[in-house]
């Protein structure tokens, strides 16, 4: 039983970075209506920047968190620049060109990462406070999992408050719902889009920083995490942040349970879940029909 709870906790912790990256993409997609292929690269850059800041050394938790935030912001700046210069130019063209442009951006950024940091992978040490396993009420929990879960919940709550209960959030929802109407009502859609993009990118990078100690920091991260971001967003429903949370948790728990109890199925389970779900309900768990038409 304890093992089961332990698996669930681990699954939840695994889900949180999925949620961060996925919600960032959902935000961007909802507000700007572009499917940003480069989103996974922001995760990767976040990890690389964190490593650059900490030099791979173990530090105390506060520094680590600060570095995460720093990585998030730095990457967001890169994201903003790339949006301003590259993506901006594809807006007035057909949607297929937009999708392809973000793929071009993905390649460009991925290539630049190799140019800046080289092809050899890096590793980042865990901060002191998040090493090892702790046992709470008979359940084994990795300390880093507690951190990831905590950060995820805090950010999730903050996002919820921001989107649902703040003036900015209302504007975001208005622009996501109907851009022209929002503009006609006096919302500065440009600014809202930029801000949403900035937030979305920093979320992805934050996840990258958080997970840096747990992954091999190399140039394949971008391609893998693009995939995860898409999975979360597609399952949760395009443009829905709440959906991203639910989807991430479902996926994280499914993966964790498979790792513990059905290891042979584990590599496929995510994709199987996604495919089955999409066949049954193409608009995802909580998505709007708007994205399903065409």
């Amino acid at each position, binding site marked *: 039983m304890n093992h089961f709870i332990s698996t669930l906790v681990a699954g939840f912790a695994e889900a949180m970075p999925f949620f961060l990256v996925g919600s960032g993409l959902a935000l961007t997609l909802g507000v700007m209506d572009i499917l940003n292929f480069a989103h996974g690269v922001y995760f990767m850059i976040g990890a690389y920047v964190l490593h650059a800041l900490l030099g791979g050394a173990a530090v105390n938790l506060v520094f680590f968190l600060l570095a995460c935030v720093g990585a998030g912001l730095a990457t967001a700046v890169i994201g903003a620049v790339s949006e301003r210069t590259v993506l901006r130019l594809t807006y007035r063209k057909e949607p297929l060109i937009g999708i392809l442009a973000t*793929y071009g951006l993905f390649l460009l950024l*991925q290539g630049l990462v190799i140019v800046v940091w080289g092809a050899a992978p890096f590793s980042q040490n865990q901060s002191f406070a998040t090493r090892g396993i702790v046992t709470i009420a008979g359940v084994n929990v990795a300390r880093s999992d507690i951190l990831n879960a905590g950060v995820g919940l805090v950010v999730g709550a903050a996002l919820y408050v921001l989107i649902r209960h703040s003036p900015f959030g209302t504007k975001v929802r208005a622009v996501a719902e109907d851009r022209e109407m929002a503009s006609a009502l006096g919302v500065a859609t440009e600014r809202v889009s930029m801000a949403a993009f900035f937030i979305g990118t920093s979320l992805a990078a934050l996840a990258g920083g958080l997970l840096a100690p747990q992954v091999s920091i190399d140039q394949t991260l971008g*391609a893998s995490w693009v995939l995860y971001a898409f999975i979360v967003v597609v399952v949760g429903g395009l443009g829905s942040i709440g959906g991203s949370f639910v989807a991430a948790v479902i996926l994280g728990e499914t993966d964790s349970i498979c790792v513990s109890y059905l290891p042979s199925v584990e590599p496929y389970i995510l994709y199987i879940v996604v495919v089955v779900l999409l066949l049954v309900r193409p608009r995802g768990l909580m998505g709007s029909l708007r994205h399903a038409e065409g």
Partner: protein
Amino acid sequence: MPRDDSSRAVTNGPVRALAALARRYTARPDQTPAAPPAAVIVVAGALALSGLSNPATLFNWYLVVIYALFALSANVVIGWNGIGTFGHALYFAAGAYAVALLATANLPAEVLLLLGGAVGAAIGLMFGLAATRTGSLVAMAMLTLMFAQLGYQIVYGVGVFGGENGLVGIPRGSVFGISLNSTTAFNWYLMIVFGLCWYALVRLRRSTVARAMLAARDDPTRARAAGLHVTGLRVTGFVIGGLFAGLAGALYAQTEGVIGSDVAYWTTSGMVLIMVIIGGTGRLWGPVIGAALYTWGNVYLLNTTSTMDVYLGLALLLILLVAPRGIAQLLTSAARLAVSGARRRHREAGTGTRKGNPRRW
């Protein structure tokens, strides 16, 4: 008005004949016979390949031909149907693995080839039926990505496919009794297969089905209101794309002799997408150019820099911004300008008058 006959003499004879031929081909492009150009491609290609002495160069050109077919197949989905698919590599992989898995069965090469195509078409059908359940381009792009990754996981994980290292020792076999181990024979085999596929694609492009696909791409709502079954057209596109991609994959396996799981990873789909977009979707020879540029670019850049991605990304972005219809569009526009410029100069020279300096572009 006195005429200057000497300048006219230059433009007589062969030039006129060529101009007439060009006019016939461009005025009613849809009606010219498709077989002769295909035959020319086969013969010229096979002879050119046989003239190459450096095995590495020869090999790269093999790849160009194979990737050209791969890109042409992707163009059916991406260009004709306007669907940004990120899962196209899976049919290619399916064709290749089909051939690889049947390596010990001692089947003739052409049978294996057709099996590869059939497998590709079957998977294309599955993809198509599933992906077109939604109408949204965005959702389709992601769905195709998901399915392809599932396929990749299966290829990577299930033992019979050989995992990451894949399968080796795939023989070239023989066609109608002629062994393909001889380079010359293989050159002809490759070019004949490509030529036949090219012919088929030319005929397909001229068909009503293809026109309907273009219409459904341009405006799905108007298409439906005009009685076109948009979903059916899209699925057909996936099947045709899958068929030719499977053929290309089978050729790949027969050429390389080995096949690894990386062929099925989603970035390979990205690669063929780039070939199609950079080469251009409007003309059939666009993807061929894209394939050639990519393959040789890869070879060249691999020797000089360690990262191709920056250049790929920049090239893609540049093309999308400057010439979204690809290099084919650039070349066609340039050719048109050149022809109209030449026509004007011919006219002016012929009448012996000069209407002032022709406009410089």
